[in-house]
């Protein structure tokens, strides 16, 4: 395979004429509802099949058809799968956004575009690849009505030819995408081939981006976080699922329905070992979870910020009445009118302290597909062991985008259902007191409605009850109960996932991050080392309440940057509630809140600006946009 190419172009040849192999970002700008998602996933999967670490991010509007949408694909031999904001190859298909899209590119980037769009009038420092899409699609797709959808397959072929994507892998990816629809797959693959042939004959290679087969994806899968969480819930043994559609959480429950229908029907009786109900709103969805959790089901719902707000009252009842339940919060940008289809770590503070009175709730922060799966399982165990609502804090980037992952580990440990007394237990114990701290961990015994024993029944209500669950408004009874709930919170510290800590061996700066910010931070750690010789420690928080290891990490470092995807430094705010004043003084904040997934360059620059001062750090100013790490990570 050729490793050098003669560069033909209207720009000066780059200083290094060698090809840049397996390290690039592709952005496809299209119109929503034009079938481009399928094309983009085919490209993504084809690169994945070539063994090159890859990630895809869909930036879409709150709309079904007609508004602009972008999809970015990043291939990285270093294994970086976070978003990279610099684009190397743009596929400009949307006349509405083409000017904006082209103007945003760095000099030297390449553009594949519909020849009808006069892209050259905007820039003269790019590499131009005009393609006559309409002319190419007509012969392969005689049905004019389908052309709009098939047209986008042409660019898959063009990009495949330009970047050296294996057409065998493209075809396999495409057939997987179309599943059993063979005719549709044939038609679409013909369009891909037409694009490839056209590029082969008519487009001389000018850019220096190239893909070559690697073997870094052996055994790996590709999945969306919502599907991974759904699988986790199924293997956690969820029995009651109640939900209300809201972007970006809907696909979690929809995928779960598919899996449950397939794998959770009792083989003997052909009956369901689960109940899934689409509720009338989020109030009802969480009310059903509380009722089901009280009656002993493993119950869950999935929602996003607006749903979390509506659930606030019930979550308070769940906290005080001590009812288990799992809530998946697929976080997104704020209210429903605005940026509901953009990502954000926006509900951290409001969810941690959701409801009225003294309430706080365990939060789990998955960052990967594997963690969406394993933390879903852990969440159900924790909820039942603690007898309280537990939140799994995903986000849109994690939940709705395709990510590479190792296959998920089968849960080897048995399901933990917490302190549930049976009729036999009650015979042995002679009775029970629902809210008595029998073991010193703040968690009382409970019985499930329907337990056949005269001492099993009890009356559940909010805050005003004594140890026997009898109504009481006495001040000392209330205080005693609240203090027990504090002990239970301490128990939670040991139950939520521990942080993952990467020591730097130095006591200078540390980084704290959680969830999807992780993927920017792993790259930022390398950039800091490479560009400024800064070795930073890293603590990835995986659960709330904070483990003492998080506090120790902050104590060990002089300055700690808390990286998160919101404006108000929400996790930093939670840390401030727990930390001593001298530790609070060490905290710095890196915040990313434009609705797009956080990227390493912005993160590194923010840290360096605060560390070194001045406006632009040397590394960024010198145009070191491309990652050239010393060590291969993957």
């Amino acid at each position: 395979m050729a490793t050098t190419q003669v560069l033909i172009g209207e720009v000066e040849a780059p200083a290094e004429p060698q090809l840049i192999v397996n390290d690039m970002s592709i952005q496809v700008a299209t119109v929503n509802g034009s079938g481009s998602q399928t094309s983009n996933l085919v490209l993504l999967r084809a690169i994945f099949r070539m063994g090159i670490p890859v990630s895809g991010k869909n930036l879409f509007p709150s709309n079904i058809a007609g508004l602009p949408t972008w999809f970015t694909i990043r291939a990285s031999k270093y294994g970086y799968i976070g978003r990279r904001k610099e684009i190397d190859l743009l596929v400009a298909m949307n006349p509405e956004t083409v000017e904006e899209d082209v103007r945003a590119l760095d000099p030297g980037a390449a553009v594949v575009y519909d020849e009808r769009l006069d892209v050259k009038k905007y820039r003269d420092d790019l590499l131009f690849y005009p393609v006559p899409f309409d002319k190419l699609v007509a012969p392969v797709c005689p049905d004019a009505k389908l052309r709009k959808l098939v047209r986008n397959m042409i660019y898959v072929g063009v990009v495949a030819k330009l970047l050296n994507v294996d057409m065998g892998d493209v075809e396999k990816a495409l057939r997987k995408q179309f599943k059993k629809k063979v005719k549709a797959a044939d038609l679409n693959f013909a369009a891909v081939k037409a694009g490839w042939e056209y590029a082969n004959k008519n487009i001389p290679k000018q850019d220096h981006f190239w893909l070559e087969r690697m073997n870094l994806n052996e055994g790996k899968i590709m999945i969306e976080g919502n599907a991974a969480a759904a699988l986790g819930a199924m293997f956690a043994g969820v029995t009651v699922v109640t939900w209300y559609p809201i972007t970006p959480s809907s696909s979690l429950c929809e995928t779960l329905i598919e899996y449950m229908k397939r794998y959770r029907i009792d083989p003997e009786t052909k009956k369901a070992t689960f109940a899934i109900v689409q509720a009338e709103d989020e109030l009802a969805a969480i009310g059903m979870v509380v009722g089901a959790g009280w009656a002993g089901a493993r119950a869950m719902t999935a929602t996003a910020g607006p749903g979390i707000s509506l659930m606030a009252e019930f979550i308070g009842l769940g906290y005080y009445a001590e009812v288990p339940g799992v809530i998946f919060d697929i976080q997104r940008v704020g209210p429903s009118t605005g940026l509901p289809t953009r990502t954000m770590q926006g509900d951290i503070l409001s969810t941690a302290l959701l409801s009225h009175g003294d309430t706080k709730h365990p939060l789990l922060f998955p960052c990967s597909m594997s963690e969406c799966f394993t933390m879903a399982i852990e969440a159900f165990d924790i909820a039942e062991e603690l007898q309280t609502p537990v939140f799994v804090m995903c986000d849109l980037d994690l939940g709705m985008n395709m990510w590479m992952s190792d296959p998920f580990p089968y849960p080897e440990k048995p399901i933990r259902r917490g302190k549930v007394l049976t009729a036999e237990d009650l015979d042995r114990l002679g009775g029970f007191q629902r809210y008595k701290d029998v073991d010193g961990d703040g968690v009382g015994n409970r019985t499930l409605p329907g337990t056949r024993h005269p001492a099993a029944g009890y009356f559940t209500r909010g805050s005003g009850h004594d140890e026997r669950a009898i109504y009481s408004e006495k001040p000392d009874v209330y205080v005693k109960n609240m203090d027990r709930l504090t002990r239970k919170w301490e128990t939670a510290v040991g139950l939520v996932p521990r942080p993952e800590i990467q020591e730097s061996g130095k006591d200078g700066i540390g980084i704290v991050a959680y969830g999807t910010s992780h993927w920017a931070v792993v790259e930022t750690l390398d950039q800091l080392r490479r560009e400024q010789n800064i070795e930073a420690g890293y603590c990835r928080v995986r659960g709330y309440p904070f483990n003492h290891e998080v506090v120790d990490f902050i104590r060990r470092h002089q300055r700690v940057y808390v990286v998160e995807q919101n404006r108000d430094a929400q996790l930093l705010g939670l840390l401030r509630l727990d930390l001593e004043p001298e530790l609070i003084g060490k905290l710095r904040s890196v915040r990313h809140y434009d609705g797009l997934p956080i990227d390493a360059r912005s993160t590194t620059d923010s840290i360096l600006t605060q560390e070194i001062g001045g406006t632009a750090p040397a590394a960024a100013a010198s145009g070191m946009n491309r990652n050239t790490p010393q060590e291969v990570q993957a």
Partner: protein
Amino acid sequence: MATTTVPPATPKKVNRIGLEQADYKGNKTTLCAGCGHNAISERIIEAFYEMGVEPYRVAKLSGIGCSSKSPAYFLRTSYGFNAVHGRMPSVATGTVLANHKLIAVGVSGDGDTASIGVGQFVHLMRRNLPIIYIIEDNGVYGLTKGQFSATADVGSKLKTGVINDLPAIDTCALAILLGATYVARSFSGDKRQLLALIEGAVAHHGTAMLDVISPCVTFNDHEGSTKSYSYVKDHESPIEDVSFVPFFDDITVDYDPGTTTEITMHDGSRLLLKKLKSDYDPTNKGEALRVLTEAHDNEEVVTGLFYVDTKRESFIDQLNLVDEPLATLPESKVRPPKAVLDEVMESLR
């Protein structure tokens, strides 16, 4: 030695499962003396005693308000959950999904059902979840000291002199329209009718909705109120005379087939409805709605079983659940084997 004759102890009266009526009682009520809700609690106690329901099988659910406190005052050894204002239907739904063997008794009020809870109420009705849903309906918010609720009639007057100028929501008409399969209205003071209707509700499989006019002696029992004892007594007009024969009582009832409708419930019990008004047919939705509309026009409080449908599938039937409660399914039934995970992983490569 003189023998002492001990008089034989009078055998205590027990039901078919050997429990006394006292076993169905609850804690002492904290509601006002004379509150209609207390009379409803007493009827619930009698009904569950007479039907021989095992208390451990009963889940008592309620929202917020005076009505919603009352589950503490009956079936002491059953399970109770005093939930959130207007949201008992969802908690009840979750409870029944988790364990469909439970007999769910939801107690709500007119504010809890027809105002803050109307959204959840209508969706509960359309699902036909197996539940006995009792509205203790006094037309006012008692616990917040006597504001109008949405079931207050137009022209009804508060103690403070305020007159209600909005039309009442008829919860029975709403329930019938939406798909509830056992819909009745009664009066807390009508012991015989209310008892028979509750017993019928226990035997019913589906949503049994009972709107029970229950005067608030403190805030809504004065002249000018349409939910006072005297108003209801003067304006009550039963559509039929209701009797209930449990499945375990083999009683033959003599009746004139032309005047009585017999409805066989799911468990084999029989509801006998002796017609008091024309040719009332409780299986005819349109007829039920007509009677309710007419009653409003005539300023009558019509009571009785308006509508019953023993054929429609309940929500639980539709979900095709395994027989064992979901709550207690063993791990082997709810965690698929490793082969399933392997198969899914393979499909994602």
